[in-house]
């Protein structure tokens, strides 16, 4: 390239220079990012390269039914969020009086039942597997926070149905909230606050926590069963 440049004059030199410049920019971006976007991409690629993010193969021990319930929970959550979005757009009168509205309302209710059922079985499975082993403490904690956020979301959903049971539960829980000092900011008798929490803040928060949980699972891999490791390795992982 340099021989060509010297032989053909200025134009070739310019081309050669631009290639060289482009090359140096490329090297700078890959090795030492100078922008926050570059730094973020660098960190992301180091933490979660594509083969970890979207793996095609999993360890042999994953072929067990107990490993199915995490994904079953996510599928149910997608159904919950989707049916909830349709209910929000359709409005109260629509989902109380039209047959399609009632169907979506029932879909929302039953997908919540399945979501909790699968989540609890997933929780039991991971608890008895000590799934926080091998630097997976944050994965466990985000799962626990997602569970608590789900309880809050389900509770506000129950309260905003405003039927007799909902009113009873709202006014029983109002005393609980007051007793623990949360009554001033979390007023279960305030229907507007409950609706906004249920359709906006809590699902958004829950969605973010679940995304974080899944990314952490991708980063650290699926936890192996206890019997898959020898006792010494288990002790090392617990420590």
């Amino acid at each position, binding site marked *: 390239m340099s021989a060509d440049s010297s032989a053909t004059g200025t134009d070739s030199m310019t081309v050669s220079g631009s290639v060289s410049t482009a090359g140096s920019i490329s090297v700078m971006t890959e090795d030492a990012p100078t922008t926050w976007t570059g730094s973020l991409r660098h960190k992301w690629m180091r933490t979660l390269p594509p083969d970890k993010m979207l793996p095609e193969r999993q360890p*042999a021990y994953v072929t067990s039914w*107990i490993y199915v*319930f995490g994904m079953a929970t996510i599928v149910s959550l997608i159904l919950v969020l989707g049916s909830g979005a349709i209910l929000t757009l359709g409005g109260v009168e629509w989902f*109380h009086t039209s047959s399609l509205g009632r169907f979506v309302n029932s879909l929302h209710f039953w997908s919540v039942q399945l979501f909790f*059922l699968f989540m609890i079985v997933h929780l039991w*499975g991971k608890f008895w597997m000590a799934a926080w082993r091998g630097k997976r403490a944050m994965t466990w904690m985000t799962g626990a926070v997602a569970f608590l956020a789900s309880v809050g979301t389900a509770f506000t959903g129950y309260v905003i149905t405003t039927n*007799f049971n909902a009113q009873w539960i709202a006014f029983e829980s109002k005393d609980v909230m007051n007793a623990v000092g949360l009554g001033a900011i979390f007023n279960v008798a305030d229907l507007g606050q409950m609706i906004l929490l249920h359709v906006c803040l809590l699902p958004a928060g829950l969605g973010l926590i679940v995304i974080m949980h899944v990314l952490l699972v991708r980063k650290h891999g699926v936890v192996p069963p206890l019997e898959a490791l020898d006792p010494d390795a288990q002790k090392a992982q617990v420590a």
Partner: protein
Amino acid sequence: MDTLGVALDSPAQYWQIWEWVQVSIPNLIWLVVMLLLFVGALVIPFPKSAAK
């Protein structure tokens, strides 16, 4: 009954275990299903074709 009404004449069925410790029959059914799923997930073998 009107679909928007309240079924005050047919309250939920509860199983009173001991004094104030009680569980509604639908909740009890769901708990049993949950336990069966958990035990089933541990003992039922995974399909071999998927295991490959």
